């Protein structure tokens, strides 16, 4: 609220200093002064909202409906909403699965693995959780190997992925192929 107040004061002072001489004039100048005041206020607010409200990075801008910033904010919002719900129901494995999926989508793979491991401990028989956890380990292994060049960590993640993923997981064949390639390149 303080920030909004200071921004409002800044805008009032700046625009008054700029337009007051025109607005206090007569006839055409007065009209022009008021018209410019409205136009500049709308332009400033529009530009500000189109760039997002930066003091709340996770809040989507009012006019932003697409683009990388919008997607990022949406994903963060989704994750925050799931965290809120999980705080109310800390043992809900479905919420943990949804949060793990959201974190995977955001590229936060180690965090996704952590929450999916907790979900699997809660419901060890659930196949969908094991499948998602295997996918998270698989993605983390690829990132560790291809991006971070950390073969030791990638090996650990590959092992976990192979152990966790169910036999009929849709990515199981690709996982086995990539693991072979990884072993070949490592040697």
């Amino acid at each position, binding site marked *: 609220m303080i*920030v909004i107040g200071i*921004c409002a004061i800044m805008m009032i002072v700046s625009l008054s200093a*700029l337009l007051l001489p*025109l607005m206090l004039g007569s006839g055409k100048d007065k009209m022009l002064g008021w018209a410019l005041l409205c136009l500049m206020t709308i332009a400033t607010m529009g*530009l500000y909202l189109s*760039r997002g409200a930066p003091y709340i990075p996770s809040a989507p801008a009012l006019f932003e409906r697409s683009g990388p910033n919008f997607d990022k904010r949406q994903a963060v919002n989704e994750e925050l909403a799931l965290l809120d719900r999980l705080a109310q129901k800390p043992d809900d494995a479905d919420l943990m699965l949804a949060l793990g999926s959201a974190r995977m989508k955001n590229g936060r793979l180690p965090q996704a693995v952590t929450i999916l491991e907790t979900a699997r401990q809660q419901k060890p028989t659930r196949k969908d959780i094991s499948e998602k956890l295997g996918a998270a380990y698989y993605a983390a292994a690829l990132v560790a190997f291809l991006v971070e060049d950390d073969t030791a960590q990638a090996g650990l993640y590959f092992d976990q992925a192979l152990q966790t993923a169910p036999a009929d997981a849709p990515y199981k064949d690709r996982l086995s192929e990539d693991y072979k390639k990884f072993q070949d390149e490592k040697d």
Partner: protein
Amino acid sequence: MIPELGHFAFILAITVALSQLHPALSRQGAVISLFLFALSLLALLWSFITLDFTVVAVAEHMHTLQTVMGRMIGMLSSPALLALLAVTMLSAARLKFTRVRLAGLVCAIAAGLVLFALSPFERLDPPPFDGIGYSPFAEEKA
């Protein structure tokens, strides 16, 4: 709070710079937009000095383990800070060339490009703990 104010001041400065197209507002517009651009530059500088890692430009170029010299190099290697400095200088130069009415428009377009292409006050959530800029220990690790 400071980066938010800088962000708003920068956007306000762009609209004020556009108003300079009107001959009656040319002089005041130039002075006020210069003041607002300088305010946003100071806000970004403040974020760099206090290592506010919620600002992307700061997080990308600074690290808590850097020496004073490293921090200065980090600041100078930030395109967002340099672009903001250039826009402020362009706005200051506008005061000198009061007869060139289009100079205000040029300044506004330059600032608009900086805002959309570089987003100097883009924020990070959650911020990195130590920054992701050059760390003096990176070479040792390598």
